[in-house]
């Protein structure tokens, strides 16, 4: 429903080059990429702040390439929230309504409604400077959402928050999407955001989209070594976690269960760095909790290392040096054992479904 066709724009040292993307209605779309990849410029161009040098943007059937930001019905929340410091929280939230000349009584009612949705009603008369990061975040979201935008753009909205607040905000965003049905496009540096929220992702590098697709597809099949190295994780396993003593037993959607050092229970995504997986011809005794048998499916060279993909009931990627790979005489079809520590498995609770 948002369609971007070969969009190019240069702003100082940042540029977006020939980007084409399609974001579906109601989708949670996350854009990942290193600093300076042009992610913010892309978002601001979608919002209409900058006019692209070439390319077109469609919202539904409507072309909005040269539409003014105020007529696009696209909301934006920045990393630093950009709350107007000279206005109270209530005036900040009502800012968009005032531009639309909505009656003061209606404004108050809508601000009240938005305040209770985001649990910030008690802050209405305070000034932004006196709020905590999490509170400012909610006010910024309320200010954007009160206009019921078709699309909400979030530019690293959680990077200024501490870990706990970030986790709370994440489930908040997921709830907001459910309640309002707003399409959300978010930029992030945190892989947790991706696993907990995203339906689909795009990876950007030097102004270009190098890969876009379903989250699990992109992680399992990185388009090139840049994506593989940038994502760097190698293994994403969806499933359920249940407590087993001091650790958790992870049951993937298919394949054998394994252990993770975590106290999380329920639906989750387990991540495991490919370099943390040890391959051996025979099982061996060690302190590692997990040792799974599997069959080599594919061996992908990348520089001085190789990525070995195993079928252990679910797909598992291991990162080896070329030498180790030769010593083990690995080739597609080889039987091997994959050993990894429970503490190497990182468990992220899933809040989006």
């Amino acid at each position, binding site marked *: 429903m948002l369609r971007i066709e070969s969009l190019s724009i240069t702003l100082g040292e940042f540029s977006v080059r020939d980007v084409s993307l399609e974001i579906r209605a109601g989708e949670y779309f996350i854009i990942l990429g290193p600093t300076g990849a042009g992610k913010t410029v892309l978002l601001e161009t979608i919002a209409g702040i900058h006019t692209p040098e070439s390319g077109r943007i469609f919202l539904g059937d409507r072309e909005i390439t040269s539409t003014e930001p*105020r007529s696009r019905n696209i909301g934006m929340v920045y990393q630093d929230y950009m709350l107007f410091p000279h206005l109270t929280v209530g005036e900040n939230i009502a800012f968009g309504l005032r531009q639309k000349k909505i009656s003061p009584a209606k404004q108050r009612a809508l601000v009240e409604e938005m305040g209770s949705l985001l649990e910030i009603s008690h802050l209405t008369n305070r000034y932004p400077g006196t709020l905590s990061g999490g509170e400012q975040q909610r006010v910024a979201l309320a*200010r954007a959402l009160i206009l019921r935008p078709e699309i909400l753009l979030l530019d690293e909205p959680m990077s200024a928050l501490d870990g706990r607040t970030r986790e709370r905000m994440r489930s908040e965003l997921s709830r907001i999407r459910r309640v309002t049905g707003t399409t959300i496009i978010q930029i992030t540096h945190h892989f947790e955001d991706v696993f907990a929220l995203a339906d689909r992702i795009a990876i950007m590098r030097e102004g270009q989209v190098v890969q876009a697709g379903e989250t699990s597809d992109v992680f399992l099949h990185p388009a090139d070594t840049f994506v593989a190295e940038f994502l760097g994780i190698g293994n994403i396993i969806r499933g359920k976690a249940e407590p087993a003593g001091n650790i958790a037993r992870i049951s993937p959607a298919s394949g054998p269960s394994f252990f993770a050092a975590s106290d999380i229970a329920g639906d989750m995504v387990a991540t495991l760095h490919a370099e943390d997986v040890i391959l051996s011809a025979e099982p061996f005794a060690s302190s590692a909790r997990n040792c799974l048998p599997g069959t080599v499916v594919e061996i992908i060279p990348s520089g001085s290392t190789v990525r070995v993909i195993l079928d252990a009931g679910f797909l598992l990627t291991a990162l080896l040096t070329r030498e180790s790979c030769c010593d083990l005489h690995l080739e597609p079809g080889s039987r091997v054992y994959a050993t990894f520590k429970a503490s190497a498995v990182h468990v992220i609770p899933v809040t989006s479904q």
Partner: protein
Amino acid sequence: MKKISLAITFILFFVISATLLGLILYSPLSVLARSLANPEIRFAILLSLVTSVISTLICIAVAIPVAYALARYQFPGKRIATLVLTIPLTLPPLVAGIALLLFFGTTPWGKALDQAGFAVIFTPLGIIVAEVFVNLPYLIRILRSAFSAVNPRFEYVAKTLGCTDTGAFFQVTLPMARHGLLAGTVITWSKAMGEFGAVLMLAGATMMRTETLPIALYLNISGGDLDLAIAAATILILISLFTLCAVEYLDRDVHVF
């Protein structure tokens, strides 16, 4: 080092205070009151007030868009434009005044203005022109730094919330830069009240016609009427004190000096 620097600081404090107090306390209060009632001084006060307020308003109206352009937009020749806009700041006012005098006195444009009824040379209008010319660059600099301090993303957000470009400026950027605007206005006005060199050159020093407070001070000291000169000087000192206090108060988040 501590002893020496503190000692010099105290001595300087003492010298400045003594100099200014000496001037203010020179004439007894009754003499000062009588001088202030003098028609010439009252004319000078009124003329100074009227010209300085008008020139300050003109400066604000011109400086806001110019400072905003310099703070926000990239355009060819921006460096040169910034340099030229800054020259009057470092120019001695006397030189600025004589340049204005030549501009309005000898060029076809100046003569055309004169024909059209805007006589600038040796008129009160000249006072305003001189004050604007000297003070405008200063206000532009203050406002440029005030606007630069406001992250453009505030305007971006305002636009996604339904503002036009102009709406975003007046509802977000200008209110956020209000301390800089207030401080700049006070300084511009106070500099206009005290402007001497450029006014002397362009508007002349005609008693009871282009006689602002500094001109009155100059005319009376030349003519030997010390009491009237001191009355004018005292008012100028009070204006400086007021400016300093106002700017100190506003300067918590803008840095104009």
